């Protein structure tokens, strides 16, 4: 707090440090975006601005197809992970086994992509084998290809990955909601759904929309799990990984990385800005008349 007796220069140093670290985390990404607009790409002495690399990838049919799959997955994840996060947050509020439940919901954060992807891969293969064997035993072909690697399995992998984020974001917003309001709404004659939709939801929708945004970006960026579980198609990050590993750092891969970085930054950046603006509005509304508590 700049208000007490802490040295003002130490305080400024603190801020400088925080901003420097944020910059440090962003700088490499900004640098590759910069490179991606260079005609002569990385390592050249000359810098000549061009958008050719971007034109090149957008003309590439495989890449456009991969963008389409990325989009499908993102929509699928939005439509499933966020409702599930919401249900989970509601469940958390009412369950008596809070610790066990939260452990189950948040554990996927602690299981690295390659491990989770491999375990699911073998899980799906086993189910597939077992069900097909069962079908063969019955003499029917209905089960052929059940849970074979493909869109569904990739989607499940991404849901497992994104639900913890949706859950935690919604839960944090929900923790500011007082349950007495639901009780009051029920007291006024609303049924459970009306109480939720008309009273609770308007107060937690910020969390729901932020989690939609986060989940979309997480899905858009996900490569490892999808690579293991996808079956026959490629997503945009999948193509980027194979480019990087097989061809190395070409102008095209810089442009692809540039697209991924810019999409995330614009998307998340605008969410952050909207949140900040909203927060300021709320603050102005509830500004204390006098004696603001400087820190609490």
């Amino acid at each position, binding site marked *: 707090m*700049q208000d007490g007796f802490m040295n003002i220069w130490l305080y400024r140093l603190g801020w400088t440090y925080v901003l420097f670290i944020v910059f440090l985390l962003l700088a490499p990404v900004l640098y590759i975006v910069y490179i991606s607009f260079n005609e002569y790409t990385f390592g050249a002495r000359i810098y000549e601005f061009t958008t050719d690399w971007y034109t090149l990838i957008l003309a590439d049919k495989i890449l456009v197809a991969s963008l389409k799959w990325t989009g499908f997955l993102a929509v699928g994840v939005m439509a499933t992970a966020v409702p599930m996060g919401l249900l989970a947050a509601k469940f958390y509020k009412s369950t008596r086994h809070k610790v066990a439940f939260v452990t*189950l919901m948040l*554990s996927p954060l602690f299981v690295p992509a390659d*491990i989770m992807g491999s375990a699911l891969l073998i899980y799906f293969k086993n189910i597939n084998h077992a069900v097909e064997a069962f079908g063969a035993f019955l003499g029917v072909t209905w089960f052929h290809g059940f849970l074979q690697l493909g869109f569904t399995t990739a989607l499940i992998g991404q849901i497992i990955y994104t639900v913890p984020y949706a859950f935690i974001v919604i839960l944090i917003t929900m*923790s500011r909601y007082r349950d007495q309001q639901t009780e009051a709404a029920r007291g006024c004659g609303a049924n459970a759904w009306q109480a939720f939709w008309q009273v609770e939801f308007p107060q937690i929708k910020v969390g729901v929309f932020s989690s939609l945004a986060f989940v979309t970006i997480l899905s858009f960026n996900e490569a490892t799990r999808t690579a*293991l579980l996808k079956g026959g198609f490629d997503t945009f990050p999948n193509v980027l990984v194979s480019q990087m590993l097989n061809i190395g750092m070409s102008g095209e891969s810089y442009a692809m990385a540039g697209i991924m970085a810019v999409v*995330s930054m614009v998307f998340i950046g605008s969410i952050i800005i909207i949140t900040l603006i909203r927060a300021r509005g709320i603050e102005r509304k509830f500004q204390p008349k006098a004696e603001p*508590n400087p820190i609490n």
Partner: protein
Amino acid sequence: MSALLAIRDSLMGERGLQRWAFYIPVVFMALFFAAPVALTLVWSVFERTMFWMEPGFTLAAYENFFTSARAENYVYSMIHSAVAVVVSFVIGFPIAVFVRRRVVKAAQHRVILLFILPFMISELVRVFAMRPVLGRNGLLNTGLMELGIISEPITIILFSPIGVVIGDVISFLPFMVFAGFLAMEAVQTYIFEVCDDIGVGRARTFRDIIVPLAAPGIFAGGVFIFVNSLGVALVPTILGGPGAVNAGLIVNQAIVALDFPLAMAISAIMLLTLVVLLYVGHRLFDLTKILQPIS
């Protein structure tokens, strides 16, 4: 008739289907997260076949792991991961403390929000971006040479263990800031004023008050970074030198080689490492404290 109504109620009423909907997340997570994770242990003792595996009990996969260079590599990658945790703590935790202690209450969340931005850019891109920065002709080396600080490019920072640690820190540092801040949020700011009042020095406040109170968050952040450094194959693949591996990459290689029991054995070892860490941490610091702000 009344029986029919009862059935309808149990399906549609507030005590029926609607209520069961809240169990969807539990069921889904149990089915597609807990089950495959737990089954790794079972599959790791299956017999390997040419392209697949079949039920059985053999410790061949474990034997294979412990008698090859893989075990050694696993230990090395644990050391690198531990270094990444320490570096992230040293760089990231002071940010959580500074924001909680010195920044006006209303602005605290906004400062923390700043770290969401890099965190939400694809890890793939961020790790990949370290190459043109750290490389022989990279931004860092050319910059330092231009300034005359070095005359030869530093090559030890890319395609090396150091490169891997840098990549891990860049990837996972924000999590230390988030978890640290979450833990600090449970600490009333009065406490810092009490310290000022008593005259507790900066270092002493950090050691006696801040670290013990934020321990659950520090630990959770640390475990997250440790496990991901150990398990995310991307970082050593892109920034490590020849032969650089971590647990995730070994698993990946085993999958590619169609040695599924081996992949599962290494996964199981990693997951057990995780469970033991979390259990010990929970016994020491009561990790449920982190959840205080949301319960």
